[in-house]
């Protein structure tokens, strides 16, 4: 029961008063940004990255985890009451949740979302507790070849799954990879694409790209197509607690949502959109009340909300065990680890158990906090929506600029913010996915290092890239992911 002992040790770290305070700060911030438009968990954590200079790693990650989970709770509130999903993962919740709220069952919808999030978050954290050490144990045997194959598969799945078309997914991914090669080559010390600019030698920081794409791009885009008539908020009516029948109809969707969300969150590219969509479709098929779907069926809120939170825990498995980010938020968390000079992966479990287990234990604590913060206090949280939009977006730009300027006090970073921000605007206008840019930016240099190490070990023979069973399987999967849709299309056309 080694895992259990380590978890207990983690709780002794997470329950220290300072860490409890940071968990509370994270949960409050997370819920707030989940409710507010224009700012999500990835951007918030990126803007808070500078605090890593002043905070101990354990406290910082406990706060970041609170933000990650909190945003999922907060996002559901706006979906249900306003029909405006704050996060991509809350889109499905809005479908049924808002109908319930309009029919005077808003309180029950909020309750099933919050309790479902809690149940899913707790079960998924439990799964993380036992899955992570097992995967980390396996990862000890991984060679550079295997790591390269993992990143290659991650690239393909991110580009194929995210976005409206494969071409646009790959464009985003390659933009990220292209930005990632700027700066000094770590293996030979040679400058690449610096155009003689000294400040570009250190490369372009993830924070600058992320803040520019998510905050600046969003501000420019929303300003250009601003819908100034705010949505109508449905009043919170009905009993503040669910009825017996609501419970009976919710508990199975919670569990099914968790079962879908957790493994899918761990896969690159699926994010929180796909598991929530799957859960919604499944609940619609299994329900005994099909006539209620589209008019406010509680199953359609319970399932997707659970899937959403379970997926948030799922992304932590590949991140903590392999150092592999599968979403934008995970990419920022990886950058936070790198700020501390830490590399997530199997060695972190042995070298820094207090951090890893403190973080995992804080997820349990954060979940309880979030349930208490969200369920009874929802009336207070929605007041945040009263912040006038002009001042809200103006404030987001102020924080974005502090985040970029605070990195190195360089006008080059501010210029990059403008150019990449314009890029983010164009991507929104022409519907290119944004997350693959970040995955390419952070995984590109990792893939390059692993590729070069693997090839050096194999004395330049490219066959070394498929020399282990795992790498052969993963590379085959990556090729299939690319080729299968084209082949199927051809076959269908011939048939």
């Amino acid at each position, binding site marked *: 029961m080694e895992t259990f002992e380590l978890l207990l040790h983690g709780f002794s770290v997470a329950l220290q008063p300072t860490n409890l305070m940071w968990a509370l700060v994270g949960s409050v911030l997370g819920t707030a940004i989940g409710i507010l438009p224009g700012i999500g968990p990835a951007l918030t954590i990126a803007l808070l990255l500078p605090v890593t200079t002043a905070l101990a790693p354990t406290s910082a990650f406990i706060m970041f985890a609170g933000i990650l989970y909190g945003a999922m709770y907060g996002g559901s509130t706006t979906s249900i009451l306003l029909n405006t999903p704050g996060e991509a993962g809350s889109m499905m919740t809005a479908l049924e949740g808002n109908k319930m709220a309009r029919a005077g069952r808003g309180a029950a919808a909020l309750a099933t979302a919050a309790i479902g999030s809690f149940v899913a978050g707790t079960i998924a954290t439990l799964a993380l507790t036992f899955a992570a050490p097992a995967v980390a144990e396996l990862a000890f045997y991984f060679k550079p070849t295997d790591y390269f194959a993992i990143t290659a598969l991650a690239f393909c799945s991110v580009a194929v799954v995210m976005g409206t*078309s494969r071409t646009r997914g*790959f464009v985003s991914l390659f933009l990220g990879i292209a930005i990632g090669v700027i700066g000094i080559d770590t293996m030979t010390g040679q400058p690449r*694409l610096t155009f003689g600019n000294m400040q570009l030698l250190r490369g372009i920081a993830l924070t600058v790209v992320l803040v520019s794409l998510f905050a600046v791009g969003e501000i420019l885009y929303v300003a250009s*197509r601003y819908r100034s008539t705010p949505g109508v908020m449905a009043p919170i009516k009905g009993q503040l607690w669910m009825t017996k029948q609501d419970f009976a109809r919710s508990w199975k969707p919670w569990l099914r949502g968790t079962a879908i969300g957790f493994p899918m969150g761990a896969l690159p590219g699926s994010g929180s959109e796909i598991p929530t969509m799957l859960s919604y479709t499944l609940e619609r098929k299994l329900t005994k009340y099909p006539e209620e779907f589209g008019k406010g069926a509680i199953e359609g809120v319970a399932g997707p909300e659970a899937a959403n939170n379970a997926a948030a825990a799922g992304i932590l498995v590949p991140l903590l065990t392999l150092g592999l980010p599968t979403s934008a938020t995970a990419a920022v968390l990886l950058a936070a680890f790198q700020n501390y000079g830490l590399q997530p992966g199997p060695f972190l479990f042995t070298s820094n158990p207090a951090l890893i287990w403190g973080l995992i234990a804080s997820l349990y604590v954060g979940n309880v906090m979030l349930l208490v913060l969200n369920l009874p206090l929802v009336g207070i949280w929605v007041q945040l929506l009263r912040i006038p939009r*002009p001042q809200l977006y*103006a404030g987001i730009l102020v924080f974005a600029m502090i985040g970029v300027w605070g990195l190195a006090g360089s006008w080059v970073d501010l210029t*990059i*913010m403008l150019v990449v921000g314009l890029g983010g605007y164009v991507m929104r206008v022409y519907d290119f996915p944004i997350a693959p840019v970040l995955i390419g930016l952070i995984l590109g240099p990792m893939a390059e290092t692993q590729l070069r190490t693997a090839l050096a070990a194999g004395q330049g023979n490219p066959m070394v890239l498929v020399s282990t069973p795992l790498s052969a399987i993963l590379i085959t999967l990556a090729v299939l992911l690319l080729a299968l849709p084209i082949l199927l299309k051809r076959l269908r056309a011939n048939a």
Partner: protein
Amino acid sequence: MSTDGRNTTEGGSPAAAPASPKPYWIGIGLMVMGAVWLYNGFGLPQGARYAAVGPGLFVTLAGGGLLILGAILVLQIWRGESFEAQDAEDADGSTKMDKRAFLTALVAVALPIVTMGPLGMPFTATLSFVLVANAFGSRRWLLDLICGLILACAAWFLFKQLGLQLGRFFPPLGV
């Protein structure tokens, strides 16, 4: 820079709302960017004596990838691929672009490049705050100025406490 190629053509075409039907310039921009990366990649060693792969290979791959993807995109646009603007929480993708609002917000983003160093963070942030608020339709200049100033000063002191290097408060006065 990531979007060199795009900026050269940024000026006119995205103005047509909801999205111009044939945005060839994006594909061409990507191809230009790919060519820059390729050119730089070829200037670097592709191989290294013991390492088999040199610092140039990945740059070449990134450039080649962008070049090919740009060409595919041009082809897809020619074949009639549709591009619809994304919906956001406060934005309607199908509405026409408000050029004045866009340009005001753009000035707010560009301003720090010029003023951040000589005039300091709090001053710059206040100005940008007022500009963005204006872009979103606020006409209460004085209120925005006061709000922006309070937020910028509070953020400056807070992040300074956290150990962030944000420069002087107002450099012209030496404080």
